[in-house]
């Protein structure tokens, strides 16, 4: 029996349609991490993203990877990606030169609950490269400052030289009603900030669990500890949101790679309320 369905996806284009993005700038964030500004075709829906969403970046002949958008959702002429060079595809992306082209698909995935958080305090807990997917949420809150309560940004990294956006981070900390604290696992003598894992920062901030929405992104182990810590401090599971990472080939729920129990991380996530992830996070090799 034949079955007729609309010919294009809800986003208005077929799943695999890839558009060219021109690299406008590449800047070095740390010894292994780079920020790329990519110019999408003018007016293309690939740039219409919400904080927390990701794109599929394609280097022809090499491969495609999901990369979170780390720029300001208010600026859509340029798409910003912060990428750590850890494998073949990421290496190929970060070594592109301005003027080169890469392929873009997306945006995909669920956003940070910035709407839900309206009128509340926002707690951002980032680990390592995990600050990149959270940055658009920070920009969003800053842009709509009056609609949110206090903004607390806690950021953990390996060592001072691994921390992203250091100048910007310091500037955030200067703004009224914002607390931005960074900590590293290993400090040097010139590092004047905290040393210790990111959960040790919780004791330094005033949290009002009932009035706060927490957004977490970082290595899974770090998020697991941070969620436990937040729960013990009175956060309900539904107030904590996590961004998960899994292998992704399609980003549209069709390749099966990103499955985590009943969820497809690409379309049901990457941002999940902790209440959905909790049953899965302690299951080894799920």
């Amino acid at each position, binding site marked *: 029996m034949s079955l007729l369905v609309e010919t294009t996806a809800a986003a208005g284009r077929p799943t695999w349609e890839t558009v060219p993005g021109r690299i406008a700038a590449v800047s070095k964030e740390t010894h*292994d991490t780079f920020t790329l500004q990519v110019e999408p075709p003018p007016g293309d829906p690939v740039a219409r993203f919400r904080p927390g969403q990701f794109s599929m970046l394609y280097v022809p002949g090499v491969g495609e990877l999901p990369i979170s958008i780390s720029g300001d959702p208010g600026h859509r002429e340029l798409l910003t990606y912060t990428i750590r060079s850890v494998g073949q595809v990421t290496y190929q992306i970060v070594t592109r030169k301005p003027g080169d082209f890469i392929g873009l698909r997306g945006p995909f995935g669920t956003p940070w609950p910035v709407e839900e958080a309206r009128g509340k305090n926002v707690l951002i807990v980032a680990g390592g490269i995990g600050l990149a997917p959270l940055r658009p949420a920070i920009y969003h809150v800053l842009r709509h400052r009056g609609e949110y309560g206090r903004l607390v940004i806690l950021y953990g990294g*390996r060592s001072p030289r691994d921390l992203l956006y250091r100048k910007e981070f310091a500037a955030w900390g200067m703004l009224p009603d914002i607390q931005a604290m960074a900590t590293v696992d290993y*400090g*040097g003598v010139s590092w004047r900030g905290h*040393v210790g894992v990111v*959960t040790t920062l919780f*004791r330094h901030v005033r949290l009002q669990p009932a009035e706060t929405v927490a957004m977490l992104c970082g290595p899974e*182990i770090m998020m697991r500890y941070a969620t436990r810590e937040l729960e013990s401090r009175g956060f309900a599971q539904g107030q904590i949101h996590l961004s998960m990472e899994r292998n992704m080939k399609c980003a549209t729920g069709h390749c099966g790679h990103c499955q985590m129990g009943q969820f497809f991380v690409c379309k049901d996530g990457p941002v999940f309320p902790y209440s959905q992830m909790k049953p899965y996070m302690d299951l080894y090799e799920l």
Partner: protein
Amino acid sequence: MATSQVTAALAAHPFLEGLQPKHYETLAGLACEVSFEPGQIIFREGDPSSFFYLILSGTVALEIAAPGRFIAIHTVGEGEELGWSSLLDQVNKQFRARSVDAVRALAFDGARIVAACESDHEFGYIVLRKVLEVVAERLRATRLQVLDVYSKKGAPGK
């Protein structure tokens, strides 16, 4: 600081939350207020453990010497304690403690706290529980650090 001020500072310090008034008084009798300039060495690795500190303000880095440099492995700040090993016998300091900025603290002679614990076991029990909490938290944090979760390969062992 007058003794009454010290007692008040002790009662307000998170580390001592929940002690009885008489215990604050016991401790106040043992405390002396100290302050450090930024960058001062509070104790060195290998020093005999003598003092135990409750930080009132400022940040102290615990550092370990590596060839050619020091690596900070933990910082403690306002409301935290420093030097719990002084409550154990025969243990030398494992790290160097350096003030990151101006630090104010209450210092206690570890041996005298231990003596007070010995003579009043109820007091001793409470102090040891407090110390155990700190040690457990440090251990948890240390385990996470050892995992090196931010490294390129993710946590080691894979």
